[in-house]
């Protein structure tokens, strides 16, 4: 697939870029973080009391340093994913405040052993490329916020991990844990399998304190991190799609300009979670089709800048795995794929990012694999016309016993084991299960099988010596399942 769907013409894209530069130059950003203010001022931005204004040439200079790729490192090279080459790269949605308990179905806070189970599920589900840690750990000891989340994740998932250390102390612990797992600090920096993510800009047009500090910290260290822009039309951005897109684009240019000042050539992602607020009741609406449209627009802007792109897409406002959850996730995802989004933070969240659900993670894996199938496209080539089959079979014949059919019967089609395609009587005989029930069955199969830790006992002993108070974070199935 090498052509992309477009909601904007190339003239319109240039105009949006120009409008973004006008916003940066004339309105500017409120910069709360002192270090960011210093960097920006030193590199040619104008300080106007509390507001920093970005002259066009400053932004364009930073833009010239944007690298075209971003790599997520896994624990082993086979898990590495580079944007945009490996698109679509599928990532879980992260840091939900709550989760649905897999046994009771009730919403509750999450703990380190929940993260262990989720990590194992994401490791096993083939559609996912990156595990962005889905929840917080309520049992984290004071001042062990991030390592308590990372430890069970690293124990149970070899895919690249994404999380968000809170401050330099918290980040130093994360680096220490990374070094312990990798064998040394140098080995970790060679293959930094933890990527940190932030929302440095609070819309409208405000650099915050802590997320900005952390983005600067990782840029200085040369370790992988990136930011997302999160404009909410009607609340923190204008209530037009074009206004929200353009303000978000200006915000993207602002944080990436800052990062390129710190270390030119730092890999970035044009990542976003753009939404429109539902003005009937003000609801935050990432499940709305307009979110998908905004991501499509941002993909076009990212292509204009020649940077990888993506973000939170395929989310739902539904509280359960019902038709709404399916069509909201499905429609935006397909739109974004066709428009050229590279990275999809789509996995496992219900209720507008409020709640992780195991079954939803499995359903989203199915969606992810369908997206990957679509990405494969028609595999255009003379061989695939299958002229010989058509000629040999002739009018009125049948293709089912052709050698090619046998050879490709597991390949041409993505064979979902979550979507039901059986005849009604067979479906009834098998318990007449709905999608939710089939997905939860898959969760159970994965979590009930033997799951050895991906951290060896001697490394684990060293980790426990450094962080004695960490919760165990073992992947054990809920005791009710035994």
């Amino acid at each position, binding site marked *: 697939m090498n052509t992309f769907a477009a909601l904007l013409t190339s003239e319109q894209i240039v105009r949006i870029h120009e409008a973004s530069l006008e916003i940066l130059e004339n309105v500017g950003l409120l910069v709360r973080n002192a270090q960011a203010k210093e960097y920006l001022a030193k590199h040619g931005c104008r300080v106007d009391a509390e507001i920093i204004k970005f002259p066009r040439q400053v932004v364009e200079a930073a833009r010239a340093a944007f690298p075209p790729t971003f790599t997520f490192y896994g624990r082993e090279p086979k898990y590495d994913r580079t944007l945009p080459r490996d698109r679509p790269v599928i990532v879980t949605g992260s*840091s939900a*405040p709550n989760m649905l308990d897999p046994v009771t179905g009730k919403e509750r806070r999450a703990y380190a052993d929940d993260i262990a189970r989720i990590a194992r599920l994401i490791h096993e589900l083939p559609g996912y490329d990156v595990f962005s840690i889905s929840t917080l750990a309520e049992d984290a000891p004071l001042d062990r*916020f991030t390592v308590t989340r990372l430890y069970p994740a690293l124990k149970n998932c070899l895919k690249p991990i994404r999380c968000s250390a809170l*401050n330099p102390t918290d980040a130093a612990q994360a680096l220490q844990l990374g070094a312990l797992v990798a064998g040394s600090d140098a080995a970790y920096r060679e293959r930094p399998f933890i990527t940190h993510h932030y929302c440095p800009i609070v819309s409208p047009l405000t650099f915050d*304190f802590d997320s900005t500090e952390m983005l600067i910290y990782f840029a200085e260290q040369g370790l992988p991190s990136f930011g997302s822009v999160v404009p909410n039309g009607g609340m923190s951005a204008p209530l037009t799609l074009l206004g929200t897109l353009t303000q978000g684009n200006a915000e993207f240019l602002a944080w990436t300009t800052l990062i390129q000042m710190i270390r030119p050539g730092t890999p970035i992602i044009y990542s976003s979670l753009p939404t429109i607020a539902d003005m009937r009741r*003000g609801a*935050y609406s990432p499940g709305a089709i307009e979110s998908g449209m905004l991501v499509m627009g941002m993909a076009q802007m990212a292509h204009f800048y020649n940077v990888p792109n993506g973000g939170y897409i395929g989310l739902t406002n539904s509280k359960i795995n019902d038709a709404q959850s399916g069509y909201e996730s499905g429609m935006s995802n397909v739109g974004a794929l066709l428009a050229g989004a590279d990275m999809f933070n789509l996995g496992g969240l219900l209720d507008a990012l409020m709640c992780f659900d195991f079954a939803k993670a499995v359903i989203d894996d199915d969606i992810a694999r369908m997206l990957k199938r679509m990405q494969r496209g028609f595999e255009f080539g003379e061989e695939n016309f299958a002229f010989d089959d058509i000629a040999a079979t002739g009018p009125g014949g049948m293709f089912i016993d052709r050698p090619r059919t046998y050879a490709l019967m597991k390949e041409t089609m993505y064979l979902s084991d979550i979507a039901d395609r059986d005849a009604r009587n067979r479906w009834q005989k098998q318990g007449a299960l709905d999608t939710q029930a089939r997905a939860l069955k898959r969760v159970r199969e994965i979590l009930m099988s033997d799951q050895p830790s991906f951290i060896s006992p001697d490394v684990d002993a060293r980790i426990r010596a450094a962080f004695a108070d960490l919760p165990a974070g073992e992947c054990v199935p809920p005791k009710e399942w035994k």
Partner: protein
Amino acid sequence: MTHDEILKGLFDNTILGKAVLVKELTQQGLDATLEPTEMLYKALLPALQEVGRRFELGDFFVPEMLLSAKAMQGALTLLRPLLAAKGDKSLGKYVMGTVKGDVHDIGKNLCNIMLEGAGFEVIDLGVNTSPEKFVDAVQKHQPDIVGMSAFLTTTMPMFKVTIEALKKAGLRDKVRVMVGGAPVTAQYAELAGADAYCPDASSTARKAKELIGATGAAPVGALADAVKAVEQMVSVAEPENK
């Protein structure tokens, strides 16, 4: 303008959310010796009831509700001192802030509007408020309630840290603590050691009044009625996830 024309103007323009006009008309009413209570009972309150009715029907959207509430507030800034002179008083003091590490404030600001509408004196500490700053403000202002807002799952732990700081300063039992914000739940508020959690701005005003009810008397009379009407109106119009 006759008294009736002023009252009709107040009614119509409060529904339309025309704040400047409503304030002007309120002043004109006062200049024309209209009783504050008459303006409240014959124009402003019925207008808000009408807005509430239209919202229930799905006819009015959030921005319309907020504009009407703001128009009403404008009128109240003129009327409140006069009503207060007749025996009404502020409900209580409310210290409010977004916790350390967090600069999201749309939800907090909506809460402030509702609280002020409900008759509280709000002392807003702004965003990125450190536990020390909360402690200082509680010492200085001696509020009835301190409210904390967090929008990020990563800044929610500051509730507990701030509450611990209040304890350490010996202030915890002198003040009620309320928390809220998009990712916050009642269960989390309890874990953090707060007295109350509110999912949205209008319930913040309601809950704050409840808490105050336990320690002090609510005002009576015209202002209380006005306040109740603003509250009722906005309680249905609340942005749900901010």
